[in-house]
């Protein structure tokens, strides 16, 4: 049987002609991938809901109603609440949203496909780091803007002091997200990441501080990433102080989840 088909010879300019294919420079590949991931989150309704609208809604609800009793001590209610809502936004973006996005990318073979392109696995990792920090910045800017509209004021110095808490919080929660996404089925990750978000918001010491929770729960919560991040954000934005113990706890969680993820992450489900 004949296998050669009459086809016109490909000219040199024909895209189908094999040429030495050249990758884009490393930085440009990573930038392209991180923008792609950020856009995918901002364009996805459910992701946007979790990462942006829930923290913003929570801020409005807590700031304008007394539905939930939180002891704000000597502080203005808004001054006390905003750091916790920012911490909650970091948790929803770096943990819930990232866990779900990565789990579905893994299930759909996106991670395996990208691993075969010039981006590769290390490029994907760096792009992921850039993407989660970009999303966190967008979230924090949105929370700060809404808080300012409600009358919140903060000094630049306090914002700078909050930076280590933001960085370590994003690192710890992203590590946790990737650990779940790299080991469980996508549907399982979807359920767990959403349920844990609710549990930690209610009982994780993030918006309502650990010392206001029932004693036994509070003792545990202050050592969770949620409680430590909430405490570190409040210390920074209210008092302008580095909270050493909470920051150390966040650093420990970051290292723990990074090591665990490196050991357990499976590229294909």
């Amino acid at each position, binding site marked *: *049987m004949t*296998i050669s*088909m009459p*086809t016109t*010879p*490909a000219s040199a300019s*024909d*895209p*189908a*002609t*094999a*040429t*030495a*294919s*050249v*990758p*884009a*420079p490393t930085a*440009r*590949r990573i930038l*392209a*991938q991180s923008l*792609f991931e950020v*856009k*995918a989150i901002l*364009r*996805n309704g459910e992701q946007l809901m979790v990462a942006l609208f829930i923290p913003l809604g929570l801020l409005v609800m807590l700031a304008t109603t007394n539905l939930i009793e939180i002891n704000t001590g000597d502080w203005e209610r808004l001054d006390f609440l905003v750091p916790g809502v920012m911490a909650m936004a970091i948790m929803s973006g770096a943990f819930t949203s990232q866990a779900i996005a990565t789990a*579905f*990318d893994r299930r*759909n*073979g*996106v991670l*395996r*496909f*990208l*691993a*075969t*392109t*010039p*981006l*590769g696995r290390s490029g994907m990792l760096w792009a992921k780091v850039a993407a989660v920090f970009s999303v966190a910045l967008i979230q924090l800017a949105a929370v700060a803007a809404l808080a300012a509209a409600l009358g919140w004021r903060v000094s630049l110095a306090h914002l700078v002091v909050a930076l280590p808490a933001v960085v370590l919080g994003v690192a710890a929660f992203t590590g946790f997200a990737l650990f779940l996404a790299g080991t469980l089925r996508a549907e399982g990750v979807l359920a767990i990441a959403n349920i844990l978000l609710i549990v930690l918001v209610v009982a994780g010491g993030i918006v309502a501080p650990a010392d206001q929770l029932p004693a036994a729960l509070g003792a545990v919560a202050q050592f969770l990433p949620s409680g430590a991040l909430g405490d570190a954000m409040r210390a920074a934005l209210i008092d302008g102080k580095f909270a050493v113990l909470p920051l150390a706890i966040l650093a420990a969680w970051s290292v723990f989840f990074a090591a665990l993820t490196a050991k357990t992450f499976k*590229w*294909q489900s």
Partner: protein
Amino acid sequence: MPATSNHPTERGQRSPQAAPAPATLRISGLRKSYGDNEVVRGLSLVARAGQITAVLGPNGAGKTTTIECCEGLRAPDGGQITLFESVAPGSPEARSRVGVMLQDGGLPSSVRSIDMLRHVAKLYLAPWDIEDLVERLGIESFAKTQVRRLSGGQRQRLSLAAALVGRPELVFLDEPSAGMDPQSRHAVWELIRSLRDGGTAVVLTTHMMDEAESLSDQVYIVDHGQVIAQGSPAELTSSGDVALTFECDTPVEVPALESALSSTLGTPYTVTSPRPLRFKVSGDITPAAVASLAAWLNEHGVMLTHLTSGSATLEDVFLDLTGRTLR
């Protein structure tokens, strides 16, 4: 006989043309196990620039595992894989020169088709012109549709576009036309042929005989993790076993036909029925044999709908080699 060989690489180099094209992919003695299950057992294969190489085999034969080792997605347990004579699978150089279409697509579900393609193009300095690729694969009609809403065939075409957009010198296509309608399949085949004509080395896995037969320059039939036959489709099917294969509109009584042919022509014939209404006559195939067959069918009022003489089809060869039992 089909070109069975324990040394496929040597046989592959003895191609009919004067100088063989350089080996773009060379696999020798590849081994890979998952736990106790050894799925690839010493597989060797060569793919060349400007050729379409088909890896044909039943489900579970080790095709996808082999390809994934070549793509750098899995680490082999043994043997060697070399790309472009000196490049290791999965290395940065390999990743920029190799295009991959995975069996499960590899597409994010919530983005629009065209955005996915544009994004992958950004990973390369001189990508394939998107407009051209979109036109060749008929992607316009679903360019703005989210990946999750695409049909299976549309998804396959988008994955193929993503594999090609970097203008690779070597492409791996894992079951490229699975789930496609006939129109899409022909568009995809046309594109694969034009890649071959442009000098690209194409390696595809398939379990579709017609795909392997009409597309490929070299076929490797793989079963239980090993190459059990290889050659061009013509070589594989031009076996010494010349036969008459016919199809008809009503069932034929096999033993009666067999004895009629044998006694009329004075030499033994065997008749088998690979599937209902399809029969194969083996023996001394001569013009007289064709005439006797036609006469016998005439006497029994059976209408011939299809008759071929000579080589077996690739499907016959494949089933002869891999067996007919379901697995």
